[in-house]
């Protein structure tokens, strides 16, 4: 009897958990869709920026590669030696998303160790509560951490972080800025990556297309001026894209994790149910045998 009651409680608790995970799965599916749409919605902007950068690249490349000359923009300036590297890790504010947070953090820590092995100092900047907690738990010092980026990153919010870090770069406090985040490759494929966002390599900015400036192109105010203002914008949008991709990946990871949890829960419920039915049957059989034994004894 005791075992029966115990099984019943467990079945109930599994069922309740399934209800929660299934709901979370549905919510994550809807949010993933939204974030994927945002990513595709932002794509034309990234492409336009690329196109403009290419259009004016002739001027930019000339300004950037003038021998011994200062680069056209401080973001293009490659420090002679890399002593201090900043690593921005993008994690989620919430858990229940499988290996999403732990994988990107593990990658970031590995990367940081590799940099330290080369004799560089690594400053860790963390976005997302989960990354913050993990670092504090493992007693890994962070230079700064934020958790104001929500499920749907806003350009202005991300620009804030980007601005803080680029100021440090311009001031010479850091020699390079890397971002560790989940790259959204496709709806079924995401992977944690580390990318360098500062300094911007001129060939990134110009896309290597050897200065294909249309001769009849009207440029206002001037190719140099546009190039100069495209550069910081590219930096900001690169960081923003990382956040967008991370947000989309997060929801997909959560959906997958919650789907797995729901499936596991259903399987567990099935097994428990079977066990419960067997135990009940066994109990009934015992009771019948007892009754029959009693009747037999009375004869």
């Amino acid at each position, binding site marked *: 009897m005791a075992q029966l009651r115990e099984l019943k409680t467990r079945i109930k608790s599994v069922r309740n958990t399934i209800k929660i995970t299934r709901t979370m799965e549905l919510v994550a599916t809807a949010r993933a869709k939204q974030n994927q749409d945002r990513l595709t*919605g*932002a794509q034309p902007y990234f492409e336009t920026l690329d*196109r403009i950068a290419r259009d004016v690249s002739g001027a930019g490349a000339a300004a950037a590669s003038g021998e011994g000359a200062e680069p056209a923009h401080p973001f293009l300036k490659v420090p002679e030696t890399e002593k201090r590297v900043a690593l921005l890790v993008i994690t989620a504010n919430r858990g229940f998303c499988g290996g999403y947070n732990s994988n990107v953090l593990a990658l970031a820590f590995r990367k940081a160790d590799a940099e330290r092995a080369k004799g560089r100092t690594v400053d860790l900047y963390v976005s997302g509560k989960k990354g913050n907690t993990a670092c504090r738990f493992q007693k890994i010092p962070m230079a700064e951490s934020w958790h104001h980026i929500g499920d749907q990153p806003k*350009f202005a919010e991300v620009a804030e972080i980007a601005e803080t870090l680029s100021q440090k770069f311009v001031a010479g406090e850091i020699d390079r800025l890397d971002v560790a985040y989940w790259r959204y490759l496709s709806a079924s494929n995401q992977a944690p990556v580390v990318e360098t966002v500062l300094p911007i390599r001129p060939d990134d900015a110009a896309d290597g297309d050897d200065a294909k400036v249309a001769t*009849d192109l009207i440029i*206002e*105010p001037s190719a140099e001026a*546009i190039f100069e203002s495209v550069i910081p914008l590219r930096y900001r949008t690169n960081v*923003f894209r990382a956040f967008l991709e991370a947000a989309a990946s997060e929801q997909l990871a959560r959906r997958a994790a919650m789907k797995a949890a729901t499936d596991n829960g259903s399987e567990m419920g099935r097994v428990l149910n079977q066990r419960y039915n067997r135990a009940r049957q066994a109990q009934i059989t015992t009771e019948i045998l007892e009754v029959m034994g009693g009747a037999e004894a009375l004869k």
Partner: protein
Amino acid sequence: MANRMTCRIVTPEAEAWKGDVRQVVLPGSDGEVAFLSDHAPYVGRLGFGEARITDLDNKVTHFAVLGGFVTVGGNEVLVAAEGAVIASEIDLDEARRDAQTAEEELRKIPVRDEFERDAGEIKLASARARVLAGERSSKRNT
């Protein structure tokens, strides 16, 4: 097709507008620039201000454009703005309040604090752009 071109306004967050148009007026970095169909290839920097788009039915749509770039070519006007708000979504009172607070805040920032001043100026400019677009749009429609 004469008198006809396509226009797209894209921002980092979404595509803000897309359609066939007759004329596009944008806030260039040194004053307004206007484009008609068959315009020569053009690349330009945009300031903060009001954009007007005249569609094929001669209906004018107003936008607040918050900095960015425009590229024109092959009868397509492509606006890559850091922010773009269509006038119908501008709350004029709110924009006016924002402009006022931004102005007051800016006055409090010391001149030597270059970075803070830049941020303040951008805030003010974007609020003013919204006010401008909102006002012009409501004037046209009343």
